[in-house]
């Protein structure tokens, strides 16, 4: 129930932040309206980092505590993170074409390392499907999740380490957090979008976690041979379709 309220609050926040970014805040003087994409592009990328951070930390936690609930959290982080990484790439392409003149440049370090991030976590999700032994699956996933997380700082600092097309950080550089190279209203619009995306993120993580727990319950049921047997084994069991339990 509380999660449902969170969902509605997140929906309202995203609508508000999008209206603000699209219609209230003025567009950048040099880039024009295309700059408005920055708000969803950057917020998606930061949320993706956070998702994979959750996957890595929950995986580490699993390796220490051996609690499968942490593995469910790691799975939720990876799946939600893959989606937000795809959003960041899509938003970046829609921004790059009108401003740079190209959708994509394979040789740009930020773009390439982000594509790598997407591939790594799609691999993580596929790897999870290779075994249905919960403990082995969780342990392998935790190790892969920790290794893959190495790419997160590489993506973030790629624009400082290597020469490329992608611009440097406006506020994400440690030296720029207090002194961003953008007007305050742009920074506030970005932070509002980030806050709204964070609410959506929390909602999706909770829902995906709940789903993972249920799916594992089903796996467990299957292992114990309960699947569908309630109806098949008992002639009168159809009446028990809606149990009072």
């Amino acid at each position, binding site marked *: 129930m509380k999660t449902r309220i969170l969902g509605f609050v997140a929906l309202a926040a995203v609508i508000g932040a999008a209206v603000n970014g*699209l*219609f*209230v805040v*003025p*567009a*950048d*003087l*040099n*880039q*024009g*309206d295309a*700059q408005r994409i*920055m708000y969803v592009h950057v917020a998606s990328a930061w949320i993706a980092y956070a998702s994979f951070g959750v996957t890595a930390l929950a995986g580490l936690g699993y390796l220490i505590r051996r609690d499968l609930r942490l593995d469910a959290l790691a799975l939720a982080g990876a799946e939600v993170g893959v989606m937000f990484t795809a959003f960041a790439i899509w938003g970046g392409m829609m921004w790059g074409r*009108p*401003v*740079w*003149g*190209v959708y994509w*440049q*394979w*040789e*740009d*370090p930020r773009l*390439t*390392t982000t*594509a*790598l991030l997407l*591939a*790594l976590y*799609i*691999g993580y999700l*596929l*790897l999870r*499907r*290779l075994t*249905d032994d919960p403990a082995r699956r969780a342990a392998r996933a935790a190790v892969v999740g920790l290794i893959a997380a190495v790419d997160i700082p590489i993506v973030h600092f790629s624009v400082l380490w*290597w*020469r*490329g*097309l992608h*611009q*440097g*950080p*406006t506020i994400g550089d440690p030296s720029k957090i207090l002194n961003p*190279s*953008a*007007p305050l*209203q*742009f920074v506030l619009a970005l932070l509002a979008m980030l806050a709204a995306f964070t609410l959506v993120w929390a909602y999706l993580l909770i829902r995906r976690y709940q789903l993972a727990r249920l799916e594992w319950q089903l796996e467990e049921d*299957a*292992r*114990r*041979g*309960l*699947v569908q*047997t*309630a109806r*098949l*084994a*008992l002639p009168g069991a159809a009446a028990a379709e809606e149990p009072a339990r």
Partner: protein
Amino acid sequence: MTLARPVLPPLPPRGRRWGLLIGVAIVVAVIAYLAFSSVGNALVYYLTPTELLARGPAEVGKTERLGGLVKVGTISGEAPELTFVLTDGTTEISVHAATAPTRSFREGIGAVVEGELGADGVFEASQVIVKHDENYVAPSQGGLPTRAFDPGS
């Protein structure tokens, strides 16, 4: 009432496992390709004018990317005959661009051009990519319209 309980847990069919293995193999191959080919090249995503000229006459006619700042006061002409000068602060190279850059192209901005250096020392660019920076500017008070969507864009 107890339920019928088959002893054997259901295993995923073999075919599905092979499909997944192939999927994982493809992902690993993509990762390896990205890691060893593209990121390596990305270290030299473009050459500066100084670096390009330092390579000497052997560079003439080879496809390269050249990056630098568009020197103030050097832009002239329109797309098939657009010319400007790219500088890195010490060396300058004249560029002739056949295709038009985006509207964010202007004096003093960073640009990356793809093409080849001609024997006459002019870089013949087939593509001009505008490398906008991380600085954002709001329209100033008065003068420019603050309407959200500029119909002219």
